[in-house]
């Protein structure tokens, strides 16, 4: 038995392929949109993975350090370190800022992590080039996305930092590349004011009779010294010992250190459900609309393709071809179109994904789901065309 559908496709295969490619680009956009959503969630997950922490200790009653500002004294890690079930505790600071790179500005998240020993929480998990920070000051590790290269000198606030290592997929929940500094440098970057501000502050203190009482010049010096100190961190990252229950350790820290503690699951909830919820819903909405539009376009393409062949179908009917054969032919063509579309779409999405400014994650599971969705949409779309084909009067084959 000859394949009617195959014959028909071969008849005008160039046109058929081009239609499939066009459809494929549309599917590629839809897949990319799904990838953008997945990438967004993955960025949030990456942020948590990269911090290598089991618990996040933050300022009491805040959603810090990613979703809300949080600030606590650097030495609050010490009593935490002494608690049962805690393997490591390290302070960390996060600050998103704009830094100059050549002629343009790069938006980065400056991460201050303790560099005393390899593998402390907060340090970059892996490097793609160079080395980790060795000197206690003026060295930095940057994410490749920032565009920095090893040996570059970047200015953060008033100091220059040499890039000694590059890492990848170290981004903030907003997708900004990270720049790792030693904790002390990052504290300076976060809390140090510019020279003008310090100067004005001194002048204000000198003018205040309370802070600069006549006859006791030491008071204003002490006030100035207090104001220029910065020993705060945004969070303390804690890793638990392998056999400890993170929830129990978190409860103990909450109870005895009087601080707010989040576990990995709670942090994920904060990041995914609270921080990126709106943008994720925005993309999900767009994805839904895009899917509906794609389905409609597939339906119209198949419908017009069938209508274009209406005379041939009438001839088929005239020579006594069964309805089932004609329906099968149309369905096969629709599925074929869907298949070509999916293949082209997947290729297109994979090829253009790296060029997106934010991370686009194309999950194989999403692709498989996408494949079945495309097939389903094609099947449904062909119903319309099949109906039109079956309603054709065989007389049209010989009519005007």
């Amino acid at each position, binding site marked *: 038995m000859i394949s009617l559908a195959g014959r028909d496709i071969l008849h005008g295969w160039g046109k058929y392929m081009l239609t499939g490619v066009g459809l494929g680009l549309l599917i590629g956009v839809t897949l990319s949109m799904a990838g953008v959503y997945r990438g967004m969630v993955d960025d949030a997950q990456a942020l948590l993975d990269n911090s290598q922490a089991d618990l996040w200790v933050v300022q009491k009653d805040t959603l810090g350090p990613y979703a809300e500002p949080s600030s606590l004294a650097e030495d609050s890690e010490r009593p935490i370190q002494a608690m049962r079930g805690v393997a490591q505790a390290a302070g960390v600071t996060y600050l998103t800022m704009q830094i100059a790179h050549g002629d343009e500005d790069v938006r980065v998240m400056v991460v201050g992590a303790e560099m005393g*020993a390899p593998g402390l929480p907060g340090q970059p998990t892996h490097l793609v080039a160079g080395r980790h920070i060795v000197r206690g000051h003026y060295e930095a590790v940057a994410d490749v996305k920032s565009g920095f290269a090893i040996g570059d000198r970047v200015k953060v606030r008033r100091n220059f930092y040499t890039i000694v290592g590059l890492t990848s997929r170290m981004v903030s929940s907003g997708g900004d590349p990270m720049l790792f500094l030693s904790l002390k440098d990052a504290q300076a970057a976060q809390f140090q004011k510019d020279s003008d501000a310090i100067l004005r502050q001194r002048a204000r203190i000198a003018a205040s009779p309370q802070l600069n009482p006549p006859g006791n010049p030491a008071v204003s010096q002490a006030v100035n010294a207090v104001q220029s100190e910065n020993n705060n961190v945004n969070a303390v990252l804690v890793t638990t010992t392998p056999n400890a229950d993170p929830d129990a350790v978190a409860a103990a820290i909450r109870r005895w250190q009087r601080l707010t503690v989040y576990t990995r699951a709670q942090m994920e909830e904060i990041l995914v459900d609270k921080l990126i919820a709106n943008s994720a819903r925005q993309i999900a909405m767009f994805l839904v609309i895009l899917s509906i539009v794609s389905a409609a376009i597939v339906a119209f393409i198949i419908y017009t393709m069938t209508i274009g062949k209406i005379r041939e179908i009438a001839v088929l009917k005239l020579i006594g071809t069964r309805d089932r054969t004609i329906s099968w032919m149309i369905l096969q063509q629709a599925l074929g179109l869907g298949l070509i579309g999916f293949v082209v779409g997947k290729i297109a999405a994979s090829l253009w994904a790296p060029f997106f400014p934010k991370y686009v994650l194309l999950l194989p599971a999403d692709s498989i789901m996408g494949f079945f969705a495309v097939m389903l949409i094609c099947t449904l779309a062909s119903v319309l065309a099949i109906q039109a084909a079956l309603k054709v009067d065989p007389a049209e084959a010989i009519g005007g």
Partner: protein
Amino acid sequence: MSRRGWTMAAVLVPLLLLFAWVAFRSGPLAPTNVTVAQVETRRIAPAMFGIGTVEARYTQKVGPTAAGRVTMVAVDVGDMVKAGQLLAQIDPIDRDQRIDAAAGGTARSAALEQAAAALIADATARVALAKSQAERTEQLKKSGWVTNALVDQRRQELAAAQAGLVAAQANRGAAAMDSSRLGAERAALVEQRSNLRLVAPHAGLVVRRAVEPGTTVVAGQSVVEIIDPAQLWINARFDQTQSAGLAAGLPVRIALRSRPDAPISGTIERVEPMADALTEEVLAKARFTVTGTLPSIGELAEVTVALPAGAATLAVPNAAVHRVDGATGVWVIRDGDLDFVTVKLGVQDLGGWVQVLAGLAAGDRIVVHSAKALKASSRFSIVDALP
């Protein structure tokens, strides 16, 4: 096959190949690109890196010992002064008048002393007269020419004259004491007066002129600050985790913020016995010799201390060290598989090489850089360089 068939194959085959390639070589299913290195034997010269500020070893803050108003400041910032040179003057107010008053008091007490001496002479004369009269009356009494009553009277007169002499002598002693007291008081006032002249306790450079004439200063407040420009050092701070082996006498390289490309050599003068508990830093003083222009006091400086290189040991780049499930180790490639090997690490140099004390053998192939964090089950492909 027909021409059409060939064309179709030419389109479809590459398309399917491309599809297979994107499905398995990109995205989450793609192997992780890694770079590898062999465990090397090398000598690690650990080094410490600290920052500090240029400080003068000796700073003299010259100020008054009592509150007063500054009438004159003789020197300005940048002046070199000699020991004993006048720097500033505090208003003496009534000190001069009080010295004059004290001088008047001394003169008066000298006059009183003179008067007391005259009174002693007078009393001495009276005693001599009374004594001769008494002796004469005694002689006459033996011959029976005078009565006992006269003898008693003469004796009483002699005793009174002697008492008068003692009183006059005591008066003169009091006057002398008074004179020396007033003299000492005057000397004290003169001393205080000279204390209002603020002089350089040591030769040096004036670095601060804190107040201007007319300002009232409190006791202990500095008016002028002097440093010894030949004795500068860096007050350096080293992270406690990286300060093992820091000791006096080690050579250092000092890079001043104003001239980072012209490092100065120096030595660690001392490591402070007290560390900073809050900032978790060890403090040390690095001495250096100033050549050329004087660096600004308070300028930031980077201090690098190089420790002598130890014996050659196994070493790996620090980028290869990871922490997995609480253990520190490296990913070793064995028979084409990834194997996480726990290692014991030693010291690290500033180039990022870290000493391996146990866990690896020379020639082991280890993963240095990777495009993603690795797991034991990760598929990987070895490349020369990332990204």
